[in-house]
């Protein structure tokens, strides 16, 4: 979507008719609007929202200019209008939101409902969209839920920054990824199909079975529904557990930070952190070791277990004389041929009954197609290779297992050392309370883990019972023709669900990884590798800042850090949306999205000077169109770094509290 022009009529402080033209040129796609805080940046952004969706975030819902409102005489009316020219898909639209304010004879202000009209131009003709279709068109152009990613005002940036700082996670990320790259459709589809839910497509087919007579079928149905409900509850609880664990974990992190700030415990806390790092490292090593052990087991087990059997088999084979001694590359046909021509290869005459003849006939037993000599030889070769292969396996296994036990012990050791330190810190009065709370949360985490393991076990056995019940019921009901049809539908629905699940998993993981890569690339261009992040499958964000030794004393504040993340995130999303629109694979095009402009309140002052240049260079290359609001003080900076890309410039000229003019510069 490309924004071309916005016309305001009496919208809040923008008195009279004022127009903003947006830069749309490929190379000069930046529009800079400059003004102090309070001069109208937020209002301008809200004008977009009001025009498209009919509402604003302002407490005061009156959008008519205050001066005009005061001057409005009884019996007169005043119009507020916001008109936006944009291009979406291949069509040019003009979106017009108009609201009439009338001063009644009683002196009261009557506010009509704001009216939405859309004009569109196709093939040179300009027409109005039918009234009942306008909302639909707006939803197609930019649904309200997605608009938040492209109209970024300063306050929202602040809020998101708090989220990232405090929780180390942003639901915005998760939602954005899913929504913008089209995964929401997949999620919805999966929800609607879900086999374990009673109210899904598959659940509905389960219910559709005709249970007119058999009481047993009804019983099974109740059983099945019970199991499904139990499974849903368990899944819910598992989700809760995950969240509770994360909350507890972030509390722990908070408390650890507190501890490190208390002067007396600083040393202990540092020690503890070292141990925790070692602990994590060991836990990872442990997990890898287990995986590798099992992988090796799967590769070598069969060969290893066969060792003694192989030995016996080979012994028997070698002892017996029955080992065929085949002659390579000689077939029965060869012998027949030689016998028929009556002369052997060496020249000896072959006659029926003579020695040569008898020898040749005996050979027939040992060569293909009669012989098994080759098969046996093959078998022996295999035996040799298996033995070699399995040779060290047992020793390797024992060693690997020992290593794993070592890791286990080290893990326990680290955990107990950490415990000891915490106890020591408890001795210190100020730290005591914090440490106690820390213990409490740690216990929460480990309790939840236990609960989760138990629940998973339960889940497994309920699933088995559920399958059993479904199969039993199916036996009973399939006798009915109609039920057979439903069974077919259900089977297809299940298959569709399975394929979609696979696709979703792949796509989500792929998309999240892409987002991570994109964001890190943007970081690279701004921070030269000094900052990077990872996003895990629960959308927890971990930021890595490389220590810069003695380069400058401008260390980013944590606000700046999270703003950098947000900025990179927005840029990353936009880039992905653009990349997506170029894909041609069929399921991809079903999920594609259109590139969107980026409208943001640029917190340039949160960045230090080194970064601003990088930020300004990166931005225009990523979004199709940029509309950026900046403060006066940042004006020079923006000119310096964005200069060549700026297509249009405006300035908020605030005359007084109620009148602001948008002036082109």
């Amino acid at each position: 979507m490309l924004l071309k022009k916005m016309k305001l009529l009496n919208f809040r402080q923008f008195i009279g008719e004022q127009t903003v033209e947006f830069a749309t040129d490929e190379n000069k796609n930046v529009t800079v609007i400059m003004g102090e805080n309070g001069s109208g940046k937020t209002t301008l952004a809200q004008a977009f929202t009001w025009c498209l969706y009919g509402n604003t975030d302002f407490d005061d819902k009156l959008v008519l200019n205050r001066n005009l409102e005061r001057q409005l005489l009884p019996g007169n009316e005043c119009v507020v209008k916001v008109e936006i020219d944009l291009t979406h898909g291949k069509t040019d639209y003009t979106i017009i939101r108009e609201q009439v304010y009338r001063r009644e004879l009683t002196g009261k202000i009557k506010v009509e409902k704001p009216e939405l009209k859309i004009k569109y131009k196709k093939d040179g003709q300009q027409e109005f969209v039918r009234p009942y279709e306008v909302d639909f068109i707006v939803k197609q152009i930019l649904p309200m839920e997605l608009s938040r990613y492209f109209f970024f005002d300063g306050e929202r940036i602040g809020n998101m920054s708090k989220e990232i700082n405090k929780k180390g996670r942003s639901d915005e990320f998760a939602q954005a990824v899913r929504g913008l790259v089209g995964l929401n459709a997949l999620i919805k589809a999966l929800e609607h199909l879900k086999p374990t839910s009673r109210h899904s497509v598959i659940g509905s087919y389960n219910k559709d079975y005709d249970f007119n007579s058999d009481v047993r079928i009804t019983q099974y149905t109740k059983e099945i529904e019970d199991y499904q409900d139990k499974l849903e509850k368990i899944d819910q609880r598992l989700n809760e557990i995950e969240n509770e664990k994360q909350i507890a974990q972030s509390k722990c992190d908070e408390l650890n930070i507190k501890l490190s700030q208390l002067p007396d415990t600083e040393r202990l806390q540092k020690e503890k952190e070292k141990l925790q790092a070692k602990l994590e490292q060991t836990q990872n090593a442990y997990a890898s070791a287990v995986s590798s052990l099992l992988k090796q087991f799967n590769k070598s087990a069969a060969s290893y277990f066969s060792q003694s059997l192989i030995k016996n088999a080979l012994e028997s084979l070698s002892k017996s004389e029955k080992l065929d001694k085949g002659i390579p590359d000689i077939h029965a046909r060869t012998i027949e041929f030689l016998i028929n021509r009556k002369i052997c290869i060496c020249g000896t005459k072959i006659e029926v009954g003579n020695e040569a003849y008898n020898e040749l006939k005996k050979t027939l037993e040992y060569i293909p197609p009669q012989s098994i000599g080759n098969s046996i030889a093959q078998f022996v070769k295999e035996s040799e290779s298996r033995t070699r292969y399995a040779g060290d396996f047992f020793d390797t296994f024992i060693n690997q297992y020992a290593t794993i036990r070592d890791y286990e012990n080290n893990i326990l050791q680290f955990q107990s050392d950490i415990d000891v330190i915490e106890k020591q810190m408890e001795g210190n009065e100020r730290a005591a309370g914090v440490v106690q709370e820390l213990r409490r949360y740690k216990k929460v985490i480990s309790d939840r883990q236990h609960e989760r393991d138990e629940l998973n076990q339960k889940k497994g056995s309920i699933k088995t019972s559920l399958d059993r019940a479904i199969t039993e019921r199916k036996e009973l009901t399939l006798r009915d023709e109609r039920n057979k049809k439903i069974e077919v539908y259900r089977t297809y629905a299940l298959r569709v669900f399975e394929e979609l699940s696979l696709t979703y998993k792949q796509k989500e993981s792929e998309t999240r990884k892409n987002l991570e890569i994109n964001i890190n690339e943007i970081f690279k261009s701004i921070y030269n590798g000094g900052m990077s992040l990872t996003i895990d499958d629960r959308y927890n964000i971990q930021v890595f800042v490389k220590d810069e030794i003695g380069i400058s004393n401008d260390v980013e504040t944590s606000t700046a850090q999270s703003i950098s993340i947000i900025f990179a995130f927005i840029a990353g999303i936009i880039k992905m949306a653009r990349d997506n629109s170029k894909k041609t694979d069929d399921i991809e095009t079903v999920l594609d999205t259109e590139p969107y402009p980026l409208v943001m309140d640029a917190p340039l002052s949160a960045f230090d000077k080194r970064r601003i240049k990088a930020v300004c260079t990166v931005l225009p290359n990523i979004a199709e169109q940029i509309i950026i609001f900046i403060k006066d003080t940042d004006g020079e900076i923006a000119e310096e770094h964005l200069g060549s890309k700026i297509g249009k410039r405006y300035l908020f000229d605030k005359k007084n509290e109620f009148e602001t003019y948008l002036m082109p510069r």
Partner: protein
Amino acid sequence: MLFDKEYTFYGIHAEKVRKLTFQFDKKNNSIFLSNVNVYKTAPIIGFLYQRKAELDKTPEIKPTKIFLNEMLNHLNDLKYSYQLIMLLDTKNESSFEERVNKAFRYYGNESEQTLADEQLFEQYVRGGIDVLYEKLIENAVNPEDYLKNLYDFMEEINDRYNSVITDDSILELCRLEI
């Protein structure tokens, strides 16, 4: 048989195979990575422990399969297990010569006798699954239990069967005069 088609586990053994391939920890580790790994190992174990089991026909239990391409990938291993067992099962056939024939000459020839041998093989497979399940899975709750069970099992096998044989003796035997 010939191990060239899709294979299905039924009844209680299907359930045990599922448990043997169950992912027991956060990193999705399982003792056996897939059904075909169980199928490769089970007959050997069944024969070692001299355990056979009949086909369980409990209809309520969902079967579990090994798809064709996996069977084909492991065809050699499966064939090898079959031949090994045919060679060694004296209770099935006392004459060594006949056992050699069963392993090599009659392999896959679809005769009544061969089909009976294949059924025998399947019984060892199921018996092996029973053993593996008992030893590795039955009493395991935590991830650590699975690993410990596996370790104990490996030790048991080693002590009982492999500790006297060295690799060299086997490799020596392999160098037969052919």
